[in-house]
Structures are given as structure tokens and as C-alpha cells.
């Protein structure tokens, strides 16, 4: 049976868009997030109002309200929804309630960043505080060989038996180390979930798969990614690209609807030992040796950054990818506007075009302004 025949025989039915397929309105293009399959499809935003009609009118009523030419386009749109299994035809929409949009976490802190350059921090104190905060994921970013592979292994050992479930490293290349050294450290510490080696002599990936496949594959696979690019400082962060978009899930979309995708339940220690929401955020909450991380994380001043939602950010609020984007609040296109869009995002939702953010006018100047702000005296 042709799709046209299907639609013509279903005029008394409702178009039910599955509750795990979430339409998200954008300016030029809108999207449907498939929360179960983790995929995003986009379509012209002119079609977005149809989702409201689907909730209130039967298919025959909707088709009857359009001209013959528009009806053909509408059928094409229905074919798109149907072929992607976003919808079904039903007699009654009542039995399909929406998925509740709530979000919570077991710990006050979910993840932490520790930056290291010219001085070590009190890692034992930090890990103990993170444990009491229920922190699950830690990432260490080293800009010098002061903190290398051996230290990463020791830190992972320190995290054993705590709430911390994964430790990731972004470390500079150490020419004295062989591939075996990296693999030995990674396999000896199962908390080590990922390692990126920057400033390497070539771009390559060391991978040990142990023959595992399917869903268990990523659990046992050890991967060390080496790149020639250099992570020189905290300024080399916050890049938003199409490949950085999250695969949508109920948890991720609910979090991003209510909280900031990057900063929510995050705590950071910058290279000088200061506690911040993110190492590149301007505001410091004191040196980690002088303040209690638990008190900082509990303060409303610290948590206020957690609630900067994409729906409240200029330009982003008109972007169909806003619930799949983890945002960046450290580097803003307009450093003076708290709700400015991220500097390092090259997507324009008004034209549906991606471009290199470095090509933006004054991008380099804006970045250096952000750098100067980070180096201002501590703002308590």
C-alpha cells in the first residue's frame, strides 16, 4: 500500500508522535530528538507548528485545512516521520502521557576538572572532598610534564574505593614513554577511562580491544589517543562543533532543559589551585588549600552558574541543537553579557550554517579579553 493510501485511510486518526521523539523548535531548522536511538533529525521550521495540530486535530481535519500543494508537502513530512518511526496513527492520544522532565543526581557534584601546570595540588584533600560530594568523574588536564602518566596512575589509585568511577587524563607527550608504558598504566587502573596525549609526534590511537564487542566492548577496551595538537592552556577548551553534540537521551535532554550542560554539578581546580566552576571561568571561590570544596559546592553563589539554561542564552535559545549541546560559559561571544552565546560555536541557527568560529570578527581579541579576566585578582 502506498503511503498516500495509508494517509487517506487514516483520516479519522490522530498522528501520535512517540513520547521519546521530542520535537525541538529552531529558527531556520527544527529537530526531532530520538531519545531511545540517540539520533537527531532536522527539518524546515515551517513544519514545526504541525506538532501542535497533531495534538488537537485528527489527520483529516489537518489535511483539509491546507491547499492541494501544501497537502503534498504535508504528506512528504508525514512520510519522513513515518519512515523514521517517529509516529504512529492512533484513535486516542489520551493513553500516551509525556515523559516527565525532571532531573536529579545522587551527588551534589557529578564531575570535576583538575588543571596542572607548574605546581602540584593537594590531591589527597581534593579526592577526599570529591568523595564526600559524591563526585563520579574526574578529568585531569596537564599542561606540562610535571603531571605525567605516573601521576595519573597514582591519582587513579587514590580514587579507588571512593565515589569516583572514572578518571580521564589529558597529558602532554613524554618521549621517554613507550606505548607499553601507557597501556600498562591504563590496564592496571581500571578507573582510568580515557587518555588523550597532546603534543605527540604523530596523530594515532593505541587501542587494545581484548576481543570484546557490542555493549561490553567499550567497557574493556583500552584506548590512548595521541595528537600532535598542543593543549597549551585552559583557553584551548570550550569548542562546540557538530561532532561534539550529545547523542540525545532522556537524561541528557532533561538535564539540558533545566540546567547548564557543562557547569551543572561541576567543580574545578585551576592550575594555580583556585576553585572555580570551570578552570577558565573568571570567578574564583578561593584556593583549594584555604577553602572547603564541600562548602564552596553548597553555596548558592557557586550553584548559580548551574542554572544558566540554553533556553535563556541569546541565539542558543533559537537553536534546534540546544538540548544536545553542552555549552560553554567561560568564553562568550560578548564577554560583557552573561547570557551571550559561546564564542567557540560556529553554528548560526538563523541560516542553518556551520562555520569556523575563528573566522568570527574579533574572535582572537575576545579570547584575549577572557584570558585577562581570568588573571584578575580573586573575586570572592
Amino acid at each position, binding site marked *: 500500500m502506498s503511503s498516500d493510501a495509508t494517509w487517506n485511510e487514516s483520516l479519522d486518526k490522530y498522528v501520535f508522535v512517540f513520547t521519546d521523539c521530542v520535537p525541538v523548535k529552531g529558527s531556520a531548522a527544527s529537530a526531532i530528538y530520538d531519545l531511545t536511538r540517540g539520533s537527531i533529525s532536522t527539518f524546515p521550521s515551517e513544519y514545526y507548528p504541525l506538532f501542535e495540530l497533531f495534538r488537537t486535530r485528527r489527520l483529516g481535519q489537518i489535511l483539509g485545512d491546507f491547499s492541494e500543494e501544501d497537502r503534498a508537502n504535508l504528506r512528504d513530512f508525514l512520510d519522513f516521520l513515518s519512515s523514521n518511526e517517529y509516529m504512529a496513527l492512533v484513535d486516542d492520544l489520551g493513553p500516551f502521557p509525556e515523559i516527565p522532565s525532571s532531573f536529579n543526581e545522587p551527588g551534589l557534584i557529578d564531575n570535576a576538572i583538575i588543571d596542572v601546570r607548574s605546581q602540584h595540588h593537594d590531591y589527597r584533600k581534593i579526592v577526599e572532598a570529591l568523595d564526600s560530594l559524591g563526585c563520579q568523574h*574526574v578529568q585531569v588536564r596537564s599542561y606540562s610534564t610535571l603531571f605525567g602518566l605516573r601521576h595519573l596512575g597514582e591519582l587513579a589509585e587514590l580514587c579507588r574505593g571512593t565515589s569516583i568511577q572514572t578518571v580521564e587524563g589529558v597529558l602532554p607527550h613524554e618521549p621517554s614513554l613507550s606505548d607499553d608504558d601507557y597501556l600498562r598504566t591504563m590496564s592496571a587502573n581500571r578507573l582510568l577511562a580515557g587518555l588523550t596525549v597532546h603534543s605527540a609526534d604523530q596523530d594515532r590511537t593505541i587501542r587494545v580491544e581484548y576481543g570484546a564487542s557490542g555493549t561490553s566492548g567499550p567497557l574493556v577496551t583500552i584506548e590512548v589517543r595521541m*595528537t600532535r595538537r598542543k593543549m597549551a592552556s585552559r583557553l584551548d577548551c570550550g569548542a562546540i562543533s557538530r561532532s561534539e553534540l550529545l547523542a540525545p537521551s532522556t*537524561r541528557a535532554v532533561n538535564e539540558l532543559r533545566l540546567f547548564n550542560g557543562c557547569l551543572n554539578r561541576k567543580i574545578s581546580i585551576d592550575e594555580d589551585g583556585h576553585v572555580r566552576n570551570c578552570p577558565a571561568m573568571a570567578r574564583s571561590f578561593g584556593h583549594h588549600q584555604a577553602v572547603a570544596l564541600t562548602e564552596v559546592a553548597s553555596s548558592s553563589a557557586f550553584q548559580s552558574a548551574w542554572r544558566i539554561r540554553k533556553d535563556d542564552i541569546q541565539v542558543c535559545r533559537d537553536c534546534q541543537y540546544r538540548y544536545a549541546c553542552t555549552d560553554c560559559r567561560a568564553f562568550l561571544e560578548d564577554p560583557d553579557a552573561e547570557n551571550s552565546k559561546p564564542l567557540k560555536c560556529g553554528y548560526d541557527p538563523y541560516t542553518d550554517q556551520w562555520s569556523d568560529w575563528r573566522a568570527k570578527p574579533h574572535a582572537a581579541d575576545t579570547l584575549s579579553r577572557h584570558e585577562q579576566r581570568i588573571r584578575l585578582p580573586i573575586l570572592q
Partner: protein
Amino acid sequence: MNDELEILVLDPLLRQRLPIGFARIFVSHAILDESKASLLTLQLSKYRHHTTFVRAADKPISKPEL
């Protein structure tokens, strides 16, 4: 079989400093026999233990330009 309830002697428990809250004060052989019989008829499936390993955070912790 003796169905009479007997007073459990607590002295050995107290001497071992065992908490008497865990002790059965009265013992009936009938009760014990019944529990033995029910234990024999239990059919347990093979014990399985499942642990979920988390090998990565749900979302990127940071977004380095690498």
C-alpha cells in the same frame, strides 16, 4: 519428637558476649523441623551477580580543542 517449647539457655551466649537480641528465646523442635523441610524444598536458580562498569562519563567533562 518433643513439641514442648523449651527455654533457651542464655548463659553460653552471654559468656560469648553475643547479642541476645539475635537469640531465639524459645525453641521448638517442631519449628526447627518445619524450617528444615522448607529449606529442602527450596529451588534456587543459579546465583548471578551483575556489576555495571562505568567506563566514561555520560557527557564530555570538558571540550579541549584537540
